[in-house]
């Protein structure tokens, strides 16, 4: 293993230790997060959808579990599960769309588990759908869901490309709110201009902690902050050394 690999492996081990330790130490404390408008409006949108009998549309993107975009997909699946739990008493359960088969299977499992947790028997296998195998076909397949299925709010969390603009535009024309986040830079730029509540950067991965803070979610956010500061320090030191001619 070269030094790069070794450094990477050490970073992983360090992150694991920090996360486990912080989760154990803060298991009884109440986490305090900075205010993110998107999650606050999401809670409100969930309540409104339940009250008015509409449904929520959660789109998980076109990423696959075998790709680097799997983290974003898993974050989206976690959000889907949490929203499904909160809206279990609604007349219309949320609908989940995705552009990957494996993500579709996870979506179905998440909806089924939420219904079982709520002791409800209203699980619909069609609530989790594969709308297309290509990005734009996936986006094209998700448009009818936004337009025709009484959706009051859209939650786009996953791996999106530029095709997310179609989703946000359709949501805006249907007078529905959109909270979106992607790991793709192009998508983030488009979401900033078109979505009501975009998630920039790693805010996407904090969705689970904001919706239902648990020790590991809180610890993961803290670990991210610690590692970010470490990287900042390393970059600054490296730049100084580079300028100094050491490196």
């Amino acid at each position: 293993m070269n030094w790069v690999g070794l450094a990477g492996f050490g970073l992983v081990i360090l992150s694991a230790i920090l996360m486990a330790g912080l989760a154990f130490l803060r298991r009884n404390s109440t986490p305090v997060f900075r205010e993110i408008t998107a999650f606050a409006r999401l809670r409100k949108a969930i309540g409104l959808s339940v009250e008015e009998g509409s449904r929520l549309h959660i789109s998980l993107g076109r990423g696959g579990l075998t790709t680097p975009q799997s983290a974003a997909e898993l974050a989206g699946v976690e959000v889907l599960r949490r929203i499904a739990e909160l809206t279990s008493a609604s007349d219309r359960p949320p609908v989940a769309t995705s552009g990957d088969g494996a993500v579709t299977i996870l979506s179905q499992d998440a909806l089924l588990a939420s219904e079982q947790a709520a002791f409800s028997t209203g699980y619909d296998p069609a609530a989790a759908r594969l709308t297309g195998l290509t990005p734009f076909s996936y986006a094209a397949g998700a448009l009818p869901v936004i337009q025709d299925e009484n959706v009051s709010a859209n939650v786009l969390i996953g791996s999106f490309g530029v095709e997310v603009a179609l989703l946000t535009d359709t949501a805006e024309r249907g007078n529905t709110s959109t909270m979106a986040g992607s790991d793709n830079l192009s998508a983030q730029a488009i979401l900033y201009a078109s979505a009501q509540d975009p998630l920039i950067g790693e805010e996407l991965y904090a969705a689970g902690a904001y919706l239902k803070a648990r020790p590991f979610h809180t610890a993961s956010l803290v670990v991210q902050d610690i590692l970010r500061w470490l990287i900042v320090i390393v970059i600054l030191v490296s730049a100084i050394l580079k300028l100094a001619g050491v490196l």
Partner: protein
Amino acid sequence: MKLKGLFSTAIAITTGLIVLVGYFVILPPLLDLRIAILNWFIILAAVALFVGLFNLLSVHANKLRNKEKGGIYSLILILSLLVTLILGLWLGPDQPVMASIFNAVQLPAEASLMALLAVTLTYACIRLLRPAQYAGLRSRTNLISAIFLVTALLILLGTAPLPFVGYVPILSDLIRPFIAQVLAAAGARGILIGVALGSLTTGLRILFGADRPYGSDPSRGGK
């Protein structure tokens, strides 16, 4: 039911650790095991693709059966899917028929959708600074929005030459490269680092068993 969740959790943690450690630690047995696990993942992903296809068919079939709004489009979709599938299996993907179907349907459709983005993004940029009652549910009339808009304009103006004018020297040679290759790149790099850290912690949560997207979570009342 509890054993099922425990079994799936154990498999997920084991395989994840093997692939992770195998990536950093080069050990022949570990490497072979890792490759084998990756191959299984690829196979499972392909199978998941078929499962997704079946899900797509079932959804549209239900929509057609229930005579919901847009059912005709569901019928066309189902027919198209079946025809393409049959022809592709029968003729092969390299056959001109298949190429024709692809070239005549999918390619222009997606290209058109892509072209729509030009209108959508232009419209979005125009509405970026409008008041709330005209901007829908969002009103982001602030300094960041103005900077965003100005940056986009500079990039656009520096990317292509002006009609009948050509390139603007300062804009094309100095401003645009600086914005694109320095500012944008730096910002993008920072965002990507954050995304990478988020991916790291997400993966670790799965390895610890804190997140279980693959089944019911007992901590949430699942079976």
